[in-house]
């Protein structure tokens, strides 16, 4: 570490960290980012939306831009009924609760929001957290304790991994969507130990779904409880939009469903629904639920209004699927390499040859007037660089064609197709 200080008179590529600087560990990442920006690249991780015109349009860096990377699947963010519910709650209940759910932070609106969730999922219990991240963090770390085993997919979301890290259970990952690998691990768990299998309905990086019918059956055969994160499926997968577990016909065998308000519901917040008879005790023992302020009244009011509208969203759902299939088919026909063979969700992941090309393609699309997510290692499976597109039910047929034209021009400019 002191080496950097002694060489201070040499021209360093990045400022050498002084001895004892805890930020020294980030030097590699800082150098990578500076390298990208020096090459004339717009910073993919500092985009500002100056104005938001609709669920599918915004002014980004001064340009009118089609949004294709928001997870705003059902386009509820500007729904007039939802906005009206939020305004009313803001006027009636104020800007915030200033308190924990278990103290002064449970308002009528929080109860109504949990009622809406119970109805939406047809489950006995619902618990609303301040974010989806906290829902995973709280439920996982609380229910799987010392001596218990968590068996989870290696491509699980960061909030699931952090939930494992916060708790004291033994953590055993298996290869992505590999039913045999999962079963082998379940078989080897010591007799009598508690078992929690954690799966996701849709994996957000590649937009692929889990074979829940088979996996949930295997988990149950080995006496495990099952938690499924349905963040990326709520509102449009399954007959009632309850997610991949509903579509696979295994709702009754799933012990806990985790979800979020920040995708299809169109606001922020997280939740867990369950039929476990003792579920309500979670409210007293789950630290990420207890030791934080509850959601503002306007947020839970917009969430309730949105969830109730999603129950009757069959037409929007059908249009979202049409959009996803058209984009997937169109990009494939243009010669792009995609994360899945067919459209399995509302996420279409375009695989880039490397980070440089991916960043260049991201910028070329932005100049065309299209925003997608750039996903890079280490957040991605197999260290891939991905351009992640997530469709919205409010994208028109014409917009999807416009998007395909943008991809074609940008892809040719960058030399990917």
């Amino acid at each position, binding site marked *: 570490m002191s080496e950097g200080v002694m060489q201070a008179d040499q021209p360093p590529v990045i400022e050498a960290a002084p001895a004892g600087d805890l930020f020294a560990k980030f030097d590699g990442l800082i150098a990578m980012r500076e390298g990208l920006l020096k090459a004339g690249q717009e910073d993919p991780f500092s985009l500002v939306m100056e104005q938001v015109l609709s669920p599918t349009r915004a002014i980004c860096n001064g340009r009118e831009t089609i949004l294709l990377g928001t997870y705003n699947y059902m386009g509820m963010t500007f729904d007039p009924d939802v906005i009206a519910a939020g305004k009313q709650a803001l006027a009636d209940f104020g800007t915030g609760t200033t308190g924990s759910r278990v103290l002064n932070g449970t308002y009528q609106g929080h109860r109504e929001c949990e009622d809406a969730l119970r109805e939406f999922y047809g489950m006995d219990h619902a618990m609303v957290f301040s974010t989806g991240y906290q829902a995973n963090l709280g439920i996982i770390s609380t229910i799987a304790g010392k001596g218990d*085993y968590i068996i989870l997919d*290696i491509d699980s979301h960061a909030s699931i991994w952090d939930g*494992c890290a916060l708790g004291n259970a*033994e*953590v*055993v*990952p*298996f*290869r992505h969507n590999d039913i045999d*690998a999962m079963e*082998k*691990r379940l078989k*080897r*768990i010591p007799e009598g130990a508690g078992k929690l299998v954690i799966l996701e309905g849709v994996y957000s990086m590649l937009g692929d779904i889990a074979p829940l019918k088979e996996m949930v059956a295997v988990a149950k055969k080995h006496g495990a409880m099952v938690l499924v994160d349905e963040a990326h499926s709520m509102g449009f997968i399954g007959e009632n939009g309850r997610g991949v577990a509903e579509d696979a016909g295994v709702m009754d065998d799933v012990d806990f469903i985790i979800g979020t308000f920040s995708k299809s519901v169109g606001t922020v917040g997280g939740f867990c629904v369950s039929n476990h008879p003792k579920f309500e005790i979670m409210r007293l023992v789950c630290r990420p639920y207890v030791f934080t302020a509850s959601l503002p009244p306007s947020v839970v009011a917009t969430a309730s209004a949105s969830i109730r509208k999603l129950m009757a969203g069959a037409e929007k759902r059908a249009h979202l699927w049409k959009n996803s299939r058209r984009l997937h088919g169109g990009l494939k026909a243009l010669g792009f390499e995609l994360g899945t063979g067919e459209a399995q969700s509302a996420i279409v992941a375009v695989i880039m040859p490397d980070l440089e090309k991916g960043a260049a393609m991201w910028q070329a699309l932005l100049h065309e007037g299209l925003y997608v997510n750039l996903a890079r290692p*280490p957040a991605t499976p*197999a*260290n891939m660089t991905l351009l992640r597109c997530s469709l919205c039910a409010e994208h028109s047929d014409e917009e999807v064609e416009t998007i395909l034209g943008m991809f074609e021009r940008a892809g040719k400019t960058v030399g990917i197709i």
Partner: protein
Amino acid sequence: MDRAETDRRIREQLEPFNKKGIAVADDTSFARDLEFDSLTVMDFVAAIEDEFDIIISMNQQAEIETYGQLVDAVHAMRKDDA
């Protein structure tokens, strides 16, 4: 099974993952010397788990940095079984 036998069987499993053909001793580090990334670790651990019909949880993996520590850990788990 003695430690030498455990060592032999782990060495056999390690071979396809040792891409650069590094000479492996007890103090060889998986991260530093063999340059294992997280995906390689998962595949290698799965191979060892299958070979010995054991579980090496991530909590246990966190304590294992070198080849020798792995052989010791697996050997201990096998002894528990026997």
